[in-house]
């Protein structure tokens, strides 16, 4: 049974049809690449699955049941974690506060539930070490470099038992060695039975970890095929429109 199924999903922003009758499905533990030109609608698709936008038309089902995901909180509860392209960080908080935002570690002091600051910092530092990222857990995100911010956003998804992780250009700003770590992480996720949708403009990354690639063009799905049956050249041609469909 498919984990996620989209059926004729459409999204209009005023005059712009960002998504035009997009359908596809994802199996548990499957790693799918989502590619397309800038403005093709990839992030919009991610935001529909993670509950930020409601589709203008079409249906989404998750785990076999029709899903009306009205908020990111709901998506999280279903087991959908997301690395957003704009990273979605609160600049005035530390890296570790951002990672644990919404699921802080607490201990009970009588009726009070107080934060476990050191435990959270320690866990965050562990996550950064795991990602081989030079990011300090108790620094403010506001003062961080572009790649450090991205590491925070990625580390966030590691806290929960997700069933599907959406990664919107997770490796755009990070350095060579963390790219390898993130790809390794994705492989480990698959082994744990977690499905991943990986959006990326980096052809080698997609071809390294994905089993299948979906290509979008101006809001329409123009290809959906196993990696084995395609090539970087074909995908590039699909993205640019040199090839109409495949």
């Amino acid at each position, binding site marked *: 049974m498919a984990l996620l199924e989209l059926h004729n999903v459409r999204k209009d922003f005023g005059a712009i049809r960002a998504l035009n009758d997009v359908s596809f499905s994802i199996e548990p533990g499957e790693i799918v690449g989502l590619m397309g030109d800038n403005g093709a609608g990839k992030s919009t698709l991610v935001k529909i699955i993670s509950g930020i936008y409601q589709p203008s038309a079409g249906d989404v089902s998750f785990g076999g049941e029709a899903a009306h995901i009205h908020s990111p909180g709901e998506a999280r509860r279903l087991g959908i974690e997301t690395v957003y392209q704009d990273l979605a960080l*609160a600049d005035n908080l530390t890296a570790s506060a951002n990672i644990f*935002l*919404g699921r802080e570690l607490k201990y009970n002091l009588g009726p009070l539930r107080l*934060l476990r600051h050191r435990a959270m910092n*320690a866990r965050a530092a562990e996550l950064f070490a795991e990602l081989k990222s*030079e990011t300090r857990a108790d620094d403010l995100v506001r003062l961080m470099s572009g790649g450090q911010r991205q590491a925070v956003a990625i580390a966030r998804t590691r806290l929960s038992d997700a069933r599907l992780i959406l990664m919107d250009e997770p490796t755009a700003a990070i350095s060579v060695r963390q790219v390898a770590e993130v790809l390794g992480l994705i492989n480990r996720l698959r082994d744990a039975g977690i499905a991943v949708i990986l959006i990326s403009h980096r052809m080698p990354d997609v071809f390294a970890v994905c089993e299948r690639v979906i290509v979008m063009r101006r809001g329409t799905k123009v290809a959906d095929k196993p990696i084995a049956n395609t090539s970087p050249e074909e995908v590039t041609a699909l993205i640019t429109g040199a090839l109409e469909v495949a």
Partner: protein
Amino acid sequence: MMAETVQNFSNVRRTRFWQRGFLASQTAYVGLALIVLIVVMSFASPNFLSAGNISNITRNFSFIAIATLGITLVIITGGIDLSVGSTMALTATTTSLTMVTLNNAGFYPFPGSALIISLLAGLATAGIIGFANGFAIAKLKLSPFVTTLGTLSIVRGLTYVATFGRGTAPAGPDKELFLALTSGKLAGMPISFVYLIIAAFAMWVALNHTAWGRHVYAIGGNEAAGKLTGVAVDRVKIQVYVICALAAGFNGIIISGWLGSAPANLATAYELTIIAAAVIGGANLAGGIGGASGAIIGCILIEVIRNGLVLARVDPYWQQTLVGCIIVAAVLVDRFRSLRSG
């Protein structure tokens, strides 16, 4: 309990003590300005540091400080509440009116009952105002400025409607108790100051040691990010406006206890002073920054200026001008901090 797993960053030194935490904050620098001001004032007027005057100052700033704590929460979330002054008046009025009504009706099942019912009535009124503000802002997405300006007007109007503009003096069997609880002393301190200390401590714990506080900061830092990570943004916002209104209402009740009356024009135009106190103490109207200690220092600063100038017998027409100058000078001190950190 857990090992420090901080990685070793070869290009990171340990920050010096004055470069981090409280000592590097606007609050600390304004606190410094406050100390200078206190020294100056004590030279300008021999009575300034008398025990009686210190007690007066303590009481006076407590009158707005609890409301300032409340509005600081609102400001941290990136909002604003202009209705605090009106809320103080309507809450105080409702409390007094209820006491009077119960007294007239002769309803007094047990000692203290009239007071309890009256306080609950007053605070319920405040709670409703706060909920209305929060609901309009969080759920209907109205601008906090316009919403609470509307509430300012609505609530003040209702105060006039309820009293025909007349002040209401608390009365009845619990009057003494009411006065003791609002304007009495505890361990030599004005009781309002005791409430303030408790409220400030509670706020400090909530902001720095609970998930709720984290969420308040996160909403101010990046509301969208908060939503995306599953923070109950709307609920927290509503709570913050309710707390702010309750704090203002409680302050209103305390003032009316000290005055022995709840005048209909109580706390007119206090909103700007209260917001100013919060901002002077380091709260940022753009959201994401602020705290309990700053709110209190801001209130002390404003009261010290007011009281000091009267005591120094500065020409009253010049007083207003000087108040403005000193406020600007106090926040100017904070520029040294930015200059030093380059």
